[in-house]
């Protein structure tokens, strides 16, 4: 089913979705775009390349409350925080980010241990994927092409959107998306020309070039295993690393978290908060021992987790090439260059 609406009528669509549930869409903020819960339909802004923080926060918010308690009282009086979600519409997600949800599903529900918070939020959501603008050059930091993701791949979305001149075309991909599209009566029927444009656009998405390196998952896992103990390599690539958490916080596939008890006077909340393997205290043990005291060990962990351990455990590279880590790194460390070096340069042999 293919429908359409004029782009300048997007706030009307937003208003309808807000009536049906919670709408999360790109909003322009001081530093750039981010997905936010929309309170005013006029806020929705699709003139963006991609957001600063990835849309993972729709399902895995930086802070998620689990239990509220009072100190000094019985544990039986502690109250679990229930998630009562209205339907959620996640609007305008780029194809590489849509792919990240599939990878995150493995960690949060695919391995047997199911995270109820992630699962509930996933089930409540309808995803409106949105193709990149193929007439615009790719951001120099991006490399989703390397991971086999097209700039206009509809897989993983419930409804996929393509811009055609002043119109926005909507195609239902899943039954859930189809049902919703049928309900959105303010959208009009697309023409045969629109249908052809849509199909051509998806095909053209595969020819749209970001940075590219030939990466075969098993081969790259082996490569990283072979250089794991090569301290010179890791020290060299981490010389500039500040060991801050920007890369992991903006990353769509980083999922490490900490469970914190935060108490004010006698009222406490046990909550989950994003953590980062780049932080010094991430691996700090209760004894005071820290197995990763050096920056190179932490950067190695981050890269090997995505390009080696994840492949060995689940068969997938845990990276979608969105380029956020590179774009927001204060010192311009580029994961793509590190992977490229590991694959082909073998520079360490000269030492």
């Amino acid at each position, binding site marked *: 089913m293919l429908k359409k609406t004029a782009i300048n009528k997007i706030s009307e669509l937003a208003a309808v979705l807000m009536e049906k549930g919670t709408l999360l869409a790109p909003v322009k903020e001081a530093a750039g775009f981010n997905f936010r819960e929309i309170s005013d339909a006029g806020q929705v802004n699709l003139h963006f390349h991609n957001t600063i*923080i990835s849309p993972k926060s729709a399902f895995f918010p930086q*802070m998620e409350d689990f239990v509220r308690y009072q100190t000094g009282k019985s544990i039986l009086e502690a109250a679990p925080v229930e998630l009562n979600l209205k339907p959620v519409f996640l609007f305008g997600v780029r194809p590489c980010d849509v792919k990240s949800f599939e990878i995150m599903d493995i960690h949060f529900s695919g391995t047997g241990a199911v995270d109820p918070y992630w699962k509930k939020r996933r089930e409540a959501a309808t995803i409106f994927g949105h193709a990149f603008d193929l007439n615009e050059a790719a951001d120099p930091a991006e490399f989703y092409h390397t991971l086999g993701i097209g700039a206009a791949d509809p897989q993983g979305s419930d409804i996929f959107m393509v811009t055609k001149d002043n119109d926005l075309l909507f195609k239902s991909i899943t039954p859930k998306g189809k049902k919703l599209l049928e309900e959105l009566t303010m959208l009009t029927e697309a023409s045969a020309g629109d249908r052809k444009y849509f199909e051509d656009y998806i095909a053209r998405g595969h020819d749209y070039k970001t940075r590219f390196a030939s990466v075969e998952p098993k081969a790259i896992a082996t490569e990283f295993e072979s250089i794991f103990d090569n301290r010179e390599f890791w020290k060299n690539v981490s010389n500039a690393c500040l060991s*801050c958490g920007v890369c992991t916080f903006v990353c769509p596939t980083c999922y490490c978290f900490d469970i914190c008890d935060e108490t004010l006077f006698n009222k406490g909340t046990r*909550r989950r*908060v994003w953590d980062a393997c780049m932080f010094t205290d991430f691996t700090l043990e209760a004894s005071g021992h820290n197995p990763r005291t050096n920056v190179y060990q932490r950067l190695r962990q981050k890269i090997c987790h995505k390009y080696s351990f994840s492949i060995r455990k689940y068969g997938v590279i845990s990276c979608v090439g969105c380029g956020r880590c590179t774009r927001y790194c204060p010192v311009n460390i580029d994961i*793509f260059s590190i992977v490229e070096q590991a694959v082909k340069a073998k520079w360490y042999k000269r030492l």
Partner: protein
Amino acid sequence: MTSSFKSIEENLKAEAGKLLESGRVEIVLAYGRGYDENHPMPFVAKHPSDVANMVFNEYCIHNLARYLVRYPRGTKIAVAVKAADCRAVIQLIQEEKIKRDDVVFLGIPVYGMKNPKTGEIIDSKTTCGMYNPVLYDVLLGEEVHGQKIVSPYDVLADYEAMDKEARWAFWKKEFDRCIRCYACRKACPMCYCDPCFIDQSKPRWGDKSPQSHGNLMYHLTRFHHLAGRCIDCGECSRACPVDIPLYLFHKKVAKECEEMFGQAAGMSIDDKPALVNFRVDDSDKILE
């Protein structure tokens, strides 16, 4: 520009090569190629052959003084420094984190440095506004003279026009956007505490979750830890992924310190940090 970026780059390569070859230093901290021209990276040269990979252009904004404390004491290091970076090294010497004899200052006289994210010239807006390093062993270009001198405190005009309540509201709003990635403290050459107070768990000074009170605790404490020490390189603000204008607070405190104690941070290796040094004639303004 008195010396072009290209000629500074050539001088940097030549001088770094000489220092490494003669064994005068073990390490040269400079700039190297990043993933494209607009994104150079901090770079460490250990062999004379490494210098071929050095670059210098208007996007080499990083303050390399940040990396000095990462190496064991006594390591002989040459560091490429712009004016503010040079002040950071001096401040680190004042604070006895490094020794003067262990550092070779490769001074870079320069103006027109740009923020790669916005393309905007940062000279006095987010940095100290000086063009020439205050101390150097080798100068990698000709000193800049005749360029208009702009006070680094000029950008405070709008901020200073706010009253107390407005400033409180301003910072609360800005800090509510903080995601606690700690890029600001990690990019800061003067933030070398290990562990940082906010990472301590006994006692815990602030919550880990990105909420108002924890964010305020972190930023306000960090601001005050840097009073009289911040050399106004602006790296904290540029490192911030959500563009919180941290430089405004640092500049304001630096200005007040300068007025009260007649001393700016990192201007001379013979100074003592303003808040460490007690002088009978020190200002009592803060108590009024």
